[in-house]
Every structure is written in C-alpha cells, then in structure tokens.
C-alpha cells in the first residue's frame, strides 16, 4: 500500500478477540475499518475505540453469517470508499463436540459460521476486488482443520473446507493482483477457549495479530501462528490413520 492510497478493511466476526487485536493493528496505521458482526452495541463501542487509535473511519455493520441479507449492503458500503478493499474473516463457532453428538443439526450452523458463510461473502465481493486490482484477504482457519480429531471434528471439517476454499480463491484473486493469506492459529487465548481443558502453548490475540500483519507484508500464503504449530501439525498429519484412529489427541 502506498502512503496515499486508502485501505478499507472489512472485518467479519468483529467481536472476537482476535479480530479486535487485528482491527486495532490496522487502525493504528490509519486504515478505514468496517466492523461486521451480530452484537451491534459492542461493535459501536469498538468503532469509537478504533477511531481514537487512528482509523480514518470506523463503522459497525450488522451481519450474520447464517443469513446473507446483510452481505450486499456491506459490500455496497465498502464500494463507496476509494483505494483498496480488504477483508479479514474471523468468524467461526465451535460448540462442544458432545453437544453436536446429541443434536446433529448443529452441524449446519458450524459450517455456515466457519466456512460457507464467509465463502459466500468472499464470492460476492471478489468481482469488486478484481476490478480494483488489489487488496488483501485474511482467512482465519485453524490447526483443527489439518486433521479430524475426536474432540472437534465437525469444527475441524468446516475449517478444512475453508482452507481448501481459500487455496482456490487465492489462485483466482492472484490473477488480478490481490493477495489471500490463510492463517492457522493453534491455541489462542479467547472466549472460545477460555474453559477448554488441556490447552498448552497458548498465544495471545495480540501476538496472532502481529503474526498476521507480518505475513501480509511478506505476502505469505499460509501461516501457522505461533509458528511452531507448523511442526506440531506436521507430526500430527504424518501419523498413519490406523494409529491415529486409536489416539485421543
């Protein structure tokens, strides 16, 4: 980004703590920020916070990944801004696997929040990004998407789908000069993981945001954050299925 072009960041799932840390980081560099999520009251407070930290514009927009009626108005709003349009996806939901076991219908919501909702949004905004010939996309997936584990394989499957989607989407946008970054966080200290047992090497949302910004500068395609999760996941992926199926990792 050259100093005099504006960058407008659409932040999907703006009330999550990772999204907050990321939004603050781009606000400090003077970006315009369009927050999108369900808790309007919360996002309105946050928009002011971002403006005071340096965002040239910060607004809250109601959007629900399970209902695409909010998608088009948000995209139209972004179109009114000059310069680059960029999107960061932080949406996702992870009900405990046991609840899903009791109520299989919950699967649809998980897939919608973590994969198909944001994918639909990205499909819709892609032509505009192509026309403008630039911009960035951050798609937050998860190490859980690298292999289905007994504890959260529905969430993992949704994230795996999202990873695959992003890989193809990267190829598409690359042709017009936009960059797509897939982020696979390990354990991050958020409301989602607050009461989850057995967490280790937990990263703060601020560290994850710093890693994402760095990866964007270097035009990385896929990152693990913190970086050592690449090693951990390489090992986990290499365990043969006939052994893996007996493990409870």
């Amino acid at each position: 980004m050259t100093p005099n072009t504006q960058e407008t960041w659409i932040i999907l799932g703006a009330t999550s703590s990772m999204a907050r840390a990321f939004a603050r980081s781009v606000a400090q560099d003077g970006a315009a920020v369009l927050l999108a999520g369900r808790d309007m009251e919360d996002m309105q407070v946050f928009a002011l916070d971002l403006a005071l930290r340096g965002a040239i514009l910060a607004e809250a927009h109601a959007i629900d990944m399970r209902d695409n009626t909010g998608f088009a108005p948000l995209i139209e709003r972004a179109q009114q801004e000059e310069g680059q349009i960029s999107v960061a996806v932080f949406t996702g939901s992870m009900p405990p696997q046991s609840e899903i076991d009791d109520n299989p219908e919950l699967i649809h919501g998980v897939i919608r929040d973590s994969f198909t909702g944001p994918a639909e949004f990205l499909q819709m905004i892609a032509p505009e990004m192509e026309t403008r010939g630039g911009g960035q996309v951050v798609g937050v997936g998860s190490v859980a998407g690298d292999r289905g584990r007994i504890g959260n394989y529905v969430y993992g499957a949704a994230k795996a789908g999202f990873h695959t989607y992003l890989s193809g989407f990267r190829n598409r946008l690359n042709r017009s000069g936009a960059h797509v970054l897939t982020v696979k966080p390990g354990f991050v200290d958020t409301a989602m993981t607050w009461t989850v047992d057995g967490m280790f090497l937990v990263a703060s949302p601020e560290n994850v945001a710093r890693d994402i910004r760095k990866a964007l500068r270097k035009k990385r395609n896929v990152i693990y954050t913190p970086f050592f999760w690449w090693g951990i996941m390489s090992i986990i992926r290499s365990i043969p299925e006939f052994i893996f199926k007996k493990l409870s990792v």
Partner: protein
Amino acid sequence: MTWKTDTHTGWGRVHSTTGELARPERQSALLRLTETITAPAIGMRRSYGDAPLNSDGRAIDMTRLDRIISFDPEAGLLEAEAGVQIGVLADVLAPQGWLPAVMPGTGFATLGGCIANDVHGKNHHIDGSFGDHVESITILLAGGQRKILTPGRNKDLFRATIGGLGQTGVILSAKLRLKPCVGDVIMVTEQRAADFDAFISLLDNSRATYSVGWIDATAQGNALGRGILEEAETGAGLVPAPKRAKSVPFNAPGWALASPIVKLFNALYYRRVPKTGRTLVKPIGDFFFPLDAIHNWNRLYGKLGFHQFQCVLPVDRKDDLREVLDLIARSGLASPLAVLKRMGPDVGDQPAGMMSFPQEGYTLAVDFRNRPGAEILIHRLEEMTADAGGRVYLAKDSLARETRIKSMYPEHATWCDIVNKADPEGDLKTDLIRRLDLRTAQ
C-alpha cells in the same frame, strides 16, 4: 462456558489461590453473568498481595473489556471501559497532547484497578491521586443494577468506590479528566543524593512535575538513605522508538537476589549517575513504567516470590523514616527495588476516597525476597508506621494485621457502613478483605 477453575497469584507470587474466573469480552456477556452471580472484579493482578484474589470463590477478570468509549480532545476528557491499561491510554493520548492525570509505576494496571486502589504516581505532590481526576464511574452494584456515580449525585458511594478495593461493585467504565502534556517524550534529570538528609532536602525542594527517588536500601552508616532523584517534564521531539519488551522465561534460582549481589548491584547503579547529575531524553514509557520493559520480572525472585512493603509517613516524622530505613538496611533482605517519594497534601478538600492510601508525607516502597525474617521485619515496619501516624498501602500488602490497619484509615468505619449496605451478603469480599476483616468496623 463462562467459569473456569484457575490457580493464580498476585504480583508478589507469595500466595497462590484457586478459584473460578470468568473473563467476559463484551458488556452483554458481563451483564448476563452478573444477573445471577455477584463476584468481585479483578484487573491485571498487579497488586502484590491478596487484593485481587478470592480463594475458593469467584472473580470477574475485566481485562478484555478494554475499550476507549469517548475522548474530547478540547476538554481533555476521556471515558473508557474498566479493563483498559493505563499504559495503553498513555500511548494513545500522548501524541494528542494528553496523559492520564495519574499513572502508577506500571502501565499494565487497569483503569478499574487504579480506581479501586486509588493509585498515586510520580506527580502526587502536585496532582494528588487517581481518584482526584475521576469525573464519574459507571458501576454494577451487587444484584446487577447499573449506576452512575459522581461526587455531585452520590458522593458517599463515589468516595467509597475510589480506593474501595472492589467492595462496592464491578466498575464498568469511568470518565477521567486528563492532564495536558507537551508531547510523547520526557526529559529526565537525575542527581545523586549522598545520604538520607540530602535525599529529603532534594525531595522537599523539587519543583518538577514528576519526581521519584530510587533509594539504595542496602546502604548503611554514612551512606544510609543514599539514592538518585529523578525529576522529569514531558517534551516534544523525536527519540528512538521504545524497544520491544523482553520476558523472564522462568523462575530465577534462589541466590539470584542474595544480599551481596544486591549490594554490589546497588553500588553500581548509584554510580551510574555522574556526581554532577545528568539529563536524558526518553520515550515517556521508559520513565513512567521502567519495569514494564521486562515482562514477568517478578520471576527473578524465584518460585517463593516476594513481598513489597509500602508505607507513607507524615512530613514531620523524618526521624521515624530514617529508623525504618536503617532497620531495612541492617536486615540484609532488601532487593534493588526501593523507591522514595514525596506525597503532597490533598488536592481537594478531602482525600479522593475514604480508603485512599495517599496522605501528605514521604512514601517508601521496598521489595523483599520471601525469606525467613522477611515477615518479622515487615511486621515490625508496620508497627513503626502505625506509631508514626503513617499508613500501609493495601495494594502491596499480604501480611499486615487487622487492628493496626483499621486505625490507619480514619474513614474506615464510614466506608464499612456504605459497602455493607451496597453488598449486604458480602459477595464482593476478597482474600485481603477477609484477612484484615475489613468489612467490620473497629
């Protein structure tokens, strides 16, 4: 998915406690959980002792509710959620010509924690304490009712909340009157004080907006009370960006801060400043929050942790202060972290809070490794403080005894009345409150 069992400590790490913590990230989540449960709020747990602990009970960690809600750059007024850290506010505001009017020695302290302990900073002699600059407080009372407190509308509850150790309810947000600053750098003048008398006279004669003394708590005899006075004013200009903080990755071994090492360190630290003094220009954070450059520095004290003792003695009790210092120096238990500061008179017609620590005089803060002898020494220091008409700072304390503390705080009985009415079930009590039986009037 809200409460998790967690084992944690205060900053001194002497006592650890297991209890249930919730850490809401949105106001709506906080309101939902306080509909049914009343529990004390905690911040960054930068209090040294047991103020932010609730053994076998519950506490609400406020650190994720950390947004700036409004800022009026003309009037210098700011409203923010209680979990915002003071250092973050300083970073955001200084380039715009403002600072939080009072900042404690760590930028990690939250707005809520600064109110609940009515903290003081390096400008107490001019600007008073944190509570002197609070315009209003939005609080969640026991039972879940939200209320706005101001000195005009409900003075008693307002003054019971400032320095009120979280006993009136959960502070949601507060509006602050800021202090203008020239820019985001600071000019610091350092000079040596050769002994106690020299130090006191430097402190008494200082005209600087910000001043703080480092004292060599190991020096004895003629050198007793020697140290370095730092005086500072904000300024504009360019200085190298602050370095990213380093971290102490694990507990240091027990001997790391043994007496001979501390003595040697202190002697070198003292000589670092030339006899004739010197002036330096730094980023503001380096002056206000010098220890924040090293995360988890409390681990340097090893796994047993450490105590901090902080007292304030009236201006006319210098001889008692000298005796306090002498006892500390002879004990051989002090660490390099020792601070001496002048506190000014109340800036209003009364202290900001009923349980506020600051009073006019000299305040001394010294860290002690948690070793045999430290407790006895601290108890003796507490006695000497009481006899000299001084006070012990509860934000730092984990050892003090009930009756003495209550008599140090003249408005304690009134405060008790108010908090017991606000929280009749005692659901907001913390370990500190129980240890000192602070909710019972003497």
